[in-house]
């Protein structure tokens, strides 16, 4: 049976992980390659590396880092952060990334999704959606959640699927950083309506939150950062817990 996936997310700035990472047995806590390897060995199902740098010079540092990750990590990994052109995508995939995420650039120019799907295949095009619930509606935000678009989240997700997106990475801004659980309603609404996998993100604080997002939230995968980085919930502990709650995971 196809498993639910657990995905740690690492924010990268100038070749180093940004948030302090509290990990046993890692000498350089800021080294994304060492962290990625450690997560893979602990049983992470995929990894996401987000480049949060702004300048062009730092972007090329990130491409070099992707090469190093690809050589050392033996599970699939996705990269993203400011991806806006086919050339940029091509350089990341050539460096060895399995998938890329696009966000603001796709909202600005939806045809980008079509072109990426056609040129590189839907399987590597992950559409990241930052969404917020306000005034009785879930809508899409861009530029790191700073700018509202007014676009209905379900409408955008469906359009993205029609254009060739292969997965949706859904982050609820209402929940992100709260550690009070994932946004179960919008996640299940999207996951049941769409013919592609939905990765839930934002709000993970306990093992039960993951149980909820896979059962009530119908998510195909769940992404989290700080609870893994700070060792609050080790991945083997989480997966064992999910297994005991009848959720299919790779142990």
């Amino acid at each position, binding site marked *: *049976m*196809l*498993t639910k*996936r657990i995905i740690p997310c690492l924010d990268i700035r100038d070749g180093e992980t940004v948030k302090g990472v509290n990990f046993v047995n890692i000498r350089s806590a800021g080294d994304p390659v060492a962290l990625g390897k450690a997560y*893979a060995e602990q049983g992470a*199902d995929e990894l996401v590396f987000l480049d949060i740098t702004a300048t062009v010079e730092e972007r090329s540092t990130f491409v070099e880092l992707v090469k190093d990750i*690809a*050589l*050392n990590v*033996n*599970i*699939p990994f996705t990269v993203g952060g400011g991806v806006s052109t086919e050339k940029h995508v091509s350089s990341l*995939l*050539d460096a*060895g990334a*399995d998938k890329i995420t696009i966000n603001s650039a796709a909202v600005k120019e939806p045809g980008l999704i079509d072109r990426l799907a056609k040129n*590189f*295949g*839907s*399987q*590597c095009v992950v559409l990241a959606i930052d969404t917020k619930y306000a005034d009785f509606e879930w809508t899409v935000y861009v530029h790191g959640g700073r700018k509202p678009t007014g676009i209905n989240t379900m409408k955008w997700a469906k359009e993205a699927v029609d254009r060739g997106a*292969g*997965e949706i990475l859904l982050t609820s801004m209402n929940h992100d950083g709260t550690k009070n659980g994932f946004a179960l309603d919008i996640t299940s609404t999207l996951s049941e309506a*769409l*013919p*592609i*996998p939905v990765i839930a993100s934002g709000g993970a604080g306990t093992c039960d939150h993951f149980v909820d997002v896979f059962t009530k939230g119908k998510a*195909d*995968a769940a992404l989290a950062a700080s609870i893994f980085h700070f060792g609050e919930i080790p991945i083997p502990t989480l997966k064992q817990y999910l297994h005991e709650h009848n959720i299919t995971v*790779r142990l």
Partner: protein
Amino acid sequence: MKIAIIKYNAGNIHSVRLALQREGIEPLVTDDPDQIQNADKVIFPGVGEASTAMDYLKQNGLDQIITNLTQPFLGICLGLQLMCAHSEENDTECLGIFDNQIKKFPPKDKVPHMGWNTISNLSNGLFKGIKNGSYVYFVHSFYAELSETMIAQTEYILPYASALQKDNYYAVQFHPEKSGKVGAQILRNFLDL
């Protein structure tokens, strides 16, 4: 040991090369017939669309080369599908090493089949040391029907052949290069054949 990875217009060639480098082997990525024929083992990876890939293989004479090799040969993902008789993906005649038909998953669940799933009914040296029910990583929308040449089975929407073998030809639908320790063991087993 000389390992050739067949270079053609499909993705994931780099990730297979990197997986071999992790095993201490520097493979040759090539579309040169002599280099492919003289390799000790040949790997035929691929992520992409069947008809475009077949057109490319034919235009470059690689279809004849591939079907006449005698050394151990491993197709991965699209590689497996191209080694079968026919694919429903754009109604493509394939290499015909295996008699299997490649069909599209019925849309009863999310397609592509993406993520970690089990392999069972393992019955070949390629899976030496691998337990039935081990997890490997899949990304595909088309599948090979069950057959006598099947050496591993997986269930998604329906049961299908996730690995095939006939004579020197081996093929896996999943990605050993992305399947953690299990995948690395399968690649090592192939290198040891």
